[in-house]
Structures are given as structure tokens and as C-alpha cells.
């Protein structure tokens, strides 16, 4: 095969849908029909998966380490909650878009704080931003309900047609649909030249600038997008549970998120989704088996994964497959 053809084929094939991917989403869709009793936890998984996908965009693709990603999740959650409570935007999907946009604005503004500095600086800056937002929400309890949380939210039917129900059927279908659409968009982004340039910035910022990439502009861009994703996840949670409390901003939420992503593997789109499934199922199962000590096993897995380098495995598999295909 001559070089131009190989170039075209290979670049295009990177973005081609794989059988395993189609199977993943078919399986997800099948749960809508076949696991009606599990829709409450499945909705939680979908929301956590979206949140983890958001972190993957900045950590896995752009190399920005964050311990305060809940800041954007929380802003999305409170925005959606307040929109519904005060009847500002009643249709849930429109409210979700507006909440994500607000989170994006916050992401854009705070992105300038994470442009420079080491991983430690970024960890502390992101952590600090989330802490400040939490305390702001605590202080202005006349708006947020403070420690009691935002009470009395009623969410209107999705698109005016599908009311939320107690068994969580609508909530899950709605969450999964939002996750799928935003996943498609993220997939598009990471396989684009912009996505490729993010990996370059992560891999070698000095060289990235030397081939003409505006490193800072790219980081600002992806941080803003990721904030919107986190905001959408937060909005989903507030809408599906019809409740919102200060813990949407909590440090534990940000830290758990990092665990979820590392469990599933950072830097490939499905890492956050698989991590969310594993984390929630383990939480569910282990909490039933050993109610007080379930986090011991999560901790053990985390240590093992980080030491064994599990996050590289998907990369190897992908590489090996490509080589077979091109041979």
C-alpha cells in the first residue's frame, strides 16, 4: 500500500466505530427494557459515567489533574434545581443545557488558574475553587437551602411528555440519552485535529508550541467543555433525584471521581463509563456483603491498578489490533 492511502486509512480508522463499542451501547440500551428493577441505580451509573467522561477530557486527554471537578458538577446541580424550583426554565432538557452553559462559564473563567504550574498547583487550585463554591452555597442558604439542601423541587415532564416516575424509568432513559449524545460529541472531539493537539499538549507542551499550537488556548477550550459536561451531569442528578444538597460540591465527590476514572482507565473514552459501572456495582455489592468496610476493597483495587498500570492495557490492546489490521 502506498503512503497516502495508508495515511488516509489509518487516520480515518482511528475514528471508526468498533464492534465492541456498538455492543457496549446496545447492551446499555437493552437495560432499558430488560432491567426495569434496576433503573434507579443505572441512572446513578449513567450520571457518574458522564461526570467521569468530563474528567477524562481534561485529565486523560489534556493532562490536567483535578481534585475539585465537583465545582462544576455542583454549579450544574444547583442551577438545574433553582431553575425548576422557581419555574425559571421548567422543561428539564432546556434547563440542563442552561445549567451546563453556566458551568462552562465558570470553567472558562477558572481555566486561567490551571494553565500554569505543576500537578500539585493544579490539584490545590481545583480543590480550592470547589471548597470556595461549597462555602458560598452554604453561606447563601436563603437561595440554596444551606445544609438542608434545596427542598421542594418538582421537575416537569421531559420535553413536556415524559413525567419522572418513582421507579426511575424516565430518569434512567433521560440520563442515558443525555450521556449518549454527549459521548458522541466527546468522541467527535477527541478524534478531531483539536483532540490530537490536546494529546500533543499533554505529551510535550514545549514541542506542541514549537509546531505552532497555542497551548493555552487549547487548554482553556477543553477545560470549558469539560466543565459543561460536569455541569450537565450535576443537572441530571438534581433533576432525576429532585433534590440538591451541599455534597454536590464535596471533596469526596471529586476524589471518588478520580478513583472511578483510574479504575476504568484514563485517556480512552470508555474508561469513565466502565469505571462508573465497576465502582457503583462494587459499592452496591460490597456494601451489602461488608457494610462497614466496603471501601477497603475499593482501596485495594485502586492500589493494585495504579501499581500494575492497568490504564495502559486498553492502549496496548488498541495498538495490537491496529497492527493486525494494517498487516
Amino acid at each position, binding site marked *: 500500500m502506498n503512503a497516502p492511502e495508508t495515511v488516509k486509512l489509518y487516520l480515518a480508522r482511528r475514528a471508526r466505530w468498533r464492534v465492541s463499542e456498538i455492543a457496549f451501547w446496545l447492551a446499555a440500551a437493552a437495560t432499558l427494557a430488560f432491567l426495569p428493577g434496576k433503573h434507579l441505580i443505572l441512572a446513578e451509573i449513567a450520571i457518574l459515567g458522564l461526570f467521569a467522561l468530563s474528567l477524562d477530557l481534561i485529565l486523560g486527554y489534556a493532562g490536567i489533574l483535578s481534585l475539585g471537578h465537583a465545582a462544576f458538577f455542583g454549579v450544574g446541580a444547583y442551577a438545574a434545581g433553582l431553575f425548576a424550583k422557581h419555574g425559571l426554565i421548567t422543561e428539564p432538557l432546556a434547563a440542563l443545557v442552561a445549567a451546563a452553559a453556566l458551568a462552562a462559564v465558570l470553567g472558562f473563567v477558572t481555566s486561567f488558574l490551571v494553565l500554569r504550574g505543576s500537578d500539585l498547583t493544579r490539584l490545590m487550585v481545583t480543590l480550592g475553587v470547589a471548597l470556595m463554591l461549597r462555602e458560598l452555597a452554604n453561606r447563601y442558604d436563603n437561595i440554596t437551602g444551606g445544609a438542608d439542601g434545596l427542598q421542594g423541587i418538582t421537575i416537569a415532564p421531559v420535553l413536556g411528555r415524559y413525567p419522572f416516575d418513582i421507579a426511575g424509568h424516565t430518569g434512567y432513559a433521560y440520563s442515558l440519552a443525555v450521556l449518549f449524545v454527549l459521548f458522541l460529541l466527546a468522541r467527535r472531539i477527541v478524534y478531531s485535529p483539536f483532540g490530537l493537539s490536546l494529546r500533543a499538549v499533554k505529551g510535550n507542551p514545549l514541542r506542541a508550541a514549537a509546531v505552532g499550537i*497555542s497551548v493555552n488556548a487549547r487548554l482553556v477550550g477543553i477545560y470549558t467543555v469539560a466543565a459543561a459536561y460536569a455541569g450537565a451531569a450535576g443537572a441530571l442528578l438534581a433533576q432525576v433525584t429532585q433534590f440538591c444538597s451541599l455534597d454536590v460540591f464535596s471533596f469526596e465527590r471529586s476524589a471518588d471521581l478520580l478513583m472511578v476514572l483510574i479504575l476504568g482507565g484514563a485517556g480512552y473514552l470508555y474508561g469513565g463509563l466502565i469505571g462508573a459501572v465497576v465502582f457503583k456495582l462494587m459499592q452496591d455489592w460490597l456494601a451489602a456483603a461488608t457494610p462497614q468496610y466496603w471501601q477497603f476493597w475499593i482501596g485495594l483495587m485502586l492500589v493494585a491498578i495504579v501499581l500494575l498500570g492497568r490504564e495502559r492495557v486498553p492502549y496496548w490492546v488498541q495498538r495490537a489490533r491496529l497492527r493486525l489490521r494494517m498487516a
Partner: protein
Amino acid sequence: MSAAPALETTGLSRHFGGVYAANGIGLRLERGARQALIGPNGAGKTTLINLLTGVLRPHAGTIRLEGRDITSLAPQRRVALGLARTFQINQLFGDMTPLEAVGLAVSEHLGHGADWWRVAGSRQAIDLRIADILERFHLADAMLERTASLSYGRQRLLEIALAIACSPRVLLLDEPAAGVPEGERHEILAAVSALPRDVSILFIEHDMDLVFSFAERISVMVGGSLLAEGAPRDIARDPRVQAAYLGEEAPAG
């Protein structure tokens, strides 16, 4: 009046504390030049490259690229205007394939780098350009390998290929053959020699055989200043240059 030189600096200075790493440098690179920048270790050659590319800001002086003042432009803006460089120590994207890396640089240069919607590889013109560069630098058969696993000689070629992918008007090569074993050097030399004349080249090199076989002009830098500039045979004879290189052992003159 003839066209402005490809690259020209006037009074370019930069100090670190009290030490001048560059002191009033007036360097001129004509269009189509094949010019070497030589000098003993610590002469300030890499500082000069960093000033030219915008990694460092000068404390005084100006830099002009084809007549245009670029002194205060950000590094990536200079690249966009046609000033590309390679690094003395490889600065590559270890986890990417040569194909992805070259593709990235080409997309960037053709103005599609921030395109977040279209799948990379779906523009014919970009694909052809990528393939052309990979072939010219003997990287076509290794284009799907992980960069970090390529041989050192191949990685040096990729260094240059990445700079060429930016379609430079002026190319700064920082010791292109540094560390490359004797047997693989000719491949790098051949690749550099084959570059078209509309690319003006300034290269730093320690290997004098290489300098004298390739350079048509030589600039000598010592202690942060330009000591001499001229044709290779004049430079070879210049007693000041001999003194600077050989130190105390040189005959006074």
C-alpha cells in the same frame, strides 16, 4: 532594493543575572541561506535559538522575519509566520505515531488545528502532505510505530520532519545530527541537503566536517557575542576563531 533578509536581528541581548548570554547580536540570514552557527560550549548558541523562537524574551534588540518585526510575538505565532525549529535533545510526542505527530503539525499549519468537529484524516490535501513528508524523511514504513520505540536515528529524522511539517520559511536546526551514530548520519544529512532553497537554514553544529561540507556561510559565537561571520574558508583561517576554539594552545595572532 532587494528583499529583506530571511531573518535579521539587531542588538539582540539577554542576560541571566549579571551574565550576558547574548550581547548585542546582529545576525543576518539571507534568503535561501545555508548558514552554520558555531562556537564553543557556553557561547550562547542555544540562548540565541530560544530568543529567535520566542521561548525567551530579549532584554534589548529586535528580530525581523522577512522584514516583519516578530520580537514580541508568542512562539506559536512565529511558527505560523514561518519560523520553525528542531531541538538538540529530542522533543517528540512519545506516545504518538510519526503519522499522528506529522499529521498534527500539518493540520495546525494549514489552519485546521482547532477544528474540533471533523475527523482527522478526512481532508485529502492534508493527507497528501503528511504522506509526502513521511516519505521524504524515510518514516513511511515506521509511521504506525509508537514514536518512543523508534531508533534514535529515526527519531532525529522525525525531529526535522515535524519542523518541516510547519512549512517553514526559516528553519533553525539545533545540532541535527547530535548523538546519531556515524552510519546513520548520512541519512540525516541527505534529508537536510534535499530541503528546497526557499527554506533558509541556520544550523548549530559541533561536528566541523558537517559544518564545512554543508554551510555556505558561518557565524561564530563566543561569550554571547558574534565574533566573526563569513565564508567557510575565511572562517577557517581567521586567527580569532582559532584562538577561541583552541584557547591557550592557539598561536597568538
